[in-house]
């Protein structure tokens, strides 16, 4: 199975990449001027987390649309949407955690109403709701359909939330420190580490989602197996007492 080989290679690359990012980020790269406590090192993991979360939700949205479109309707798109959204929620949680850790020494608070952080927090609850909806049992097709519609509603909300929150913030005060380091001159080993972080966490996303997708497929065929027995039992009822 070549698909399996590619997946395995992706997993190994992701593992090596993440380990290398951690090593470079923690020990090799220099401290940047203007960032107390060596906080710049969080730069190598926080933005990639947020990036992966958005990629994951985009993927979930795309799969949901493919499921809703009658000509491409297939249950595998529903599995894909569910898998990607779940991985997305994990990465969103990590975005919030790392963002909060950034905020504490920088501003003295665990939380700041930064537009990106606020948007991310709303996304987190939005997609927790989506996952909760997915877990409500029912006919697989029905579950897939209502989940796809919920994914559509949630995803369309993302730009509206982002726009309104950043507008809201900009009316109050200018952001104190730019989160993603757009004002920071990133160079040399720092730039490479950041790039490596983006690539390897994206690979980790791909690997995780692929496995989660496989798991969903296995769970489905397990349920189908159960259905076969249930059908046999149901039919046996009709033949009267044995």
């Amino acid at each position, binding site marked *: 199975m070549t698909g399996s080989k590619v997946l395995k290679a992706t997993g190994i690359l992701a593992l090596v990449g993440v380990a290398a990012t951690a090593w470079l980020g923690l020990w090799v790269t220099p401290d940047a001027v203007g960032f107390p406590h060596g906080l710049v090192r969080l730069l190598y993991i926080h933005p990639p987390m947020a990036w992966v979360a958005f990629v994951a939700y985009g993927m979930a949205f795309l799969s949901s649309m493919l499921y*809703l479109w009658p000509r491409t309707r297939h249950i595998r798109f529903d599995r894909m949407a569910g898998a990607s959204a779940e991985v997305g929620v994990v990465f969103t949680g990590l975005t919030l955690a790392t963002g909060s850790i950034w905020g504490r020494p920088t501003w003295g608070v665990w939380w700041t109403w930064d537009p990106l952080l606020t948007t991310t927090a709303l996304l987190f*609850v939005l997609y927790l709701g989506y996952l909760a909806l997915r877990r409500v049992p*029912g006919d697989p097709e029905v579950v897939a*359909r209502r989940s796809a*519609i919920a994914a559509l509603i949630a995803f369309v909300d993302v730009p*509206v*939330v982002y726009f309104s929150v950043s507008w*809201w913030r900009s009316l109050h005060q200018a952001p104190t420190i730019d989160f993603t380091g757009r004002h920071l001159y990133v160079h040399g080993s720092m730039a490479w580490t950041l790039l490596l972080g983006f690539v390897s966490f994206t690979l980790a996303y791909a690997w995780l989602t692929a496995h989660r997708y496989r798991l969903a497929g296995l769970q489905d065929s397990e349920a189908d197996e159960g259905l076969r027995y249930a059908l046999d039992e149901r039919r046996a009822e009709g033949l009267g007492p044995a």
Partner: protein
Amino acid sequence: MLRDAWLVAGKDLRIEARSRVALNQVVPFAAAVILLFGLALGPDRSVLAPASAGLFWIAVLLSCLLATQRSFAVESADGARDGLRLSGLDPAGIFLGKAGAVVAELLVLEALLALGVAVLYGAHLTGGLVLAAVCVTATVGLAAVGIIYGAVASGLRVKETLLPLLFLPVAAPVLLAATKAWDEALAGTPSGGLGWLSLLAVFAVVYVTIGIVAFGPLLEES
């Protein structure tokens, strides 16, 4: 589609006129919410008045939840979906009709609530035209999202707990935009709220469109 929408809205409003659930339960609920906000924030008017727009819209948001739940509860108790699906009505019409009825109910509620906010929090309701326009656009958006999610959750055993979780985060931008627009109007600069008003309009248009398109698949196959 519009004919069906009219029919459904008329039916829902007639049921409401008879049962008075919105009037006897949702309005007192909203009143209790703004009273409790007052208690939580203390009797100081200098604290309450600036917060009145936000508290008003929180109360509206929570009431909208109740109104949408009620909207599906009237569809014959346990067979809500069955009834709607057997009815031969155009799903888009059902969506528009139900959302329309909820909008009508909420607008009445908002008028009463605005009065309450003015009296209890000492908010000066200036810029009435902008306030009203914000109410209408925000409510249309809220009702649209509420009815879509109401249909998603109806028939599920966990609907009472699931609906708020699904609805509230999506409605967050409405809360934000409507509050800001009201703030501007109450501060005497209603023109500052026009930008927020257009954001609300975008929200309403997007979700009404999604509702019209998605309600069919939602009702048919479930």
